[in-house]
Structures are given as structure tokens and as C-alpha cells.
């Protein structure tokens, strides 16, 4: 699991949708409730835009 680029604290997610709207590679997307899912971890380029724009501190990018 530790090889994934993002460490996600699902408990804090409020399903605002900012992360998957801003993600340039669409590595993250929303589930049926709109909460963050790391669906395509191989696409992630570790730009960090989701981490810095998540209002709820859900995402931690492993650098």
C-alpha cells in the first residue's frame, strides 16, 4: 500500500470534488457519493495540486 502516491484520509472527505476537478491527469476521481478515490495511481505525476487545494486536509502526497 505504501507504494501509492497519495495517502488519503477518507474519514475527513466531504465530497466537494475540488481534487478530481483540478487533477491534470485524472488520477483521482469521485465515488458514487462524490468522495475521493485514487482510481488510477499510475497516472499520478505528484504535482501536489490536490494536496494543496484540499480544504479538508484529506490528501498527503508521498514525495
Amino acid at each position: 500500500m505504501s507504494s501509492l502516491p497519495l495517502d488519503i484520509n477518507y474519514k475527513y472527505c466531504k465530497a466537494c470534488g475540488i481534487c478530481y476537478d483540478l487533477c491534470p491527469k485524472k488520477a483521482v476521481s469521485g465515488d458514487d457519493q462524490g468522495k475521493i478515490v485514487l482510481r488510477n495511481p499510475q497516472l499520478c505525476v505528484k504535482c501536489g495540486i490536490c494536496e494543496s487545494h484540499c480544504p479538508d486536509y484529506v490528501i498527503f502526497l508521498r514525495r
Partner: protein
Amino acid sequence: MRPELQKLFRMEKLPHIWCPGCGHGIITRAIGEAIAESDINLDKTVIVSGIGCSSRAPGYMNFDTLHTLHGRALAFATGVKLANPELNVFVITGDGDATAIGGNHFIHAARRNIDLNVILFNNNIYGMTGGQYSPLTPTGKMASTSPYGNPENNFDIPALAIAAGASYVARGTAFHDKLLIECIKEGIKNKGFSLIEAMSMCPTSYGRRNKMGNAADMLNDLKRIAVNINVAKKLPPEKLEGKFLIGKLHHKPYPEFTQEYDKLILKLQKGAE
């Protein structure tokens, strides 16, 4: 959240109370990042806030914090700074808190050039109390107290602060978080009144009423409307219509209030001997 940042936050208080998509969380993190990157003593740092959505932020930050009366954050911060000038005092305030109820405190704190770092969260509305329009709600926009559109003009906060005497004025947005962090860091370095206006978004009380889409749409709107001041210098005025400037808008250091006050005390003590 990054482990280095976690010591600056009261992690047991999270998740925070703000609505889904509220920009305040992004700006609060930016303040944390700026403090982490600045070389200041965390035990000598005080964060003061008033009342409102924005003013909940110090509750999540692991410093000595004061949650004070509506609009009076700057008055309390002036007292804290004057009582112990070696403290680093931050003020987190909102658009209604700083410019409506606390409007007078705001201009007089700027006039004195007291060494406070004020971060004004501007979400264009009173979000907590049900979406009433504030002095920063743009003309024509809907609010619960202006159902046919706001007929009033809004303040230009940086212009007001510069005219009142602030020595450092900057503006960032929730989208341009790196720039916001740089602005806050410069504000910390500035000896005197530093105002950083942080443009936020309120999808729940403001966006829904004005059909501005979801949180991500509002964040992209901030990206679209904001123009960096260095870019704006090269643009013709018609291209800046309907936009606002971000970046360092004003920096003119001049004698700071607590230092001048200490000098006065010293002078009078010498005179009494």
C-alpha cells in the same frame, strides 16, 4: 496533511466545521505553511480572531489563540501586541468581521502601523449567519438580504488599507496558494501593519445563490479573474475590466507603533530622572 505541518494544527479538532468546498481550509493551511517556512518562535506566536466562519480557523491551529468579540479581533490584537511587543501576533478575520462591524478598528490599526499580520478571508458574504450581504459583496450579487441583487458598492480592501496607512498590503486567493504563502511570509517579515487579503469561496451561501456552480467551479473562477500585478503592469486597462490584482500590492515600511511607544516611554523616564 504533511507530518511537518501537523504540529501546527490541533489534529484532534479535525475534521473542521466548514462546509464542503469552503476555501477557508485551503487558506488556513497556507497560513500554517507560511508560519512553518518562516523562522519565528512558535511559543511566541499568538493568533487572534473575531466571529464568523473565518474566525473558526485559530481553533484548529496549535498556538496561543484568542477567539474574541465580533469585529474586535484587531482591538484585542492591539492590546496583546502593546502588552508584549516581542510576540508575533496574527489576526484572522473575515470580510464582515473586519470591514463592517470592525471597520473602525481596521482603519485605525492600519493608521497606527502596529506590527500585526492580518489575514482577511474574503468570501464575499456572511456565511455563518445565513448569507447576508457584507461590505465586500460585489454590486448586483444575490444574498439572503438582497434577493434582487446587492445595490451597494463594495470596498476595495487593499486600497482602503493603503489609504489608511498599512505598510504592507498583498492579496492572494485560495487557488493561488503558493503566492498566498509567499505574501504571508513577506507580511511576517514586515515590521508594521501587514494586510493580506485572501480571496476565498463560499459555495454554500454565496455560490448557490449566484449560480456559480460547485466548489471547483468557484475555485477556477478565482483563477480566471485574478491577475498577478506583475502581469497587469504590461496589460492595457480594458483587459483588466472585471478582474482583480493579486500579489504584493504595496510595501512602504515606516516607523512601527510599539517601537515608537517604547521610545516615548524611555524618553519620559529619562526626563523624570
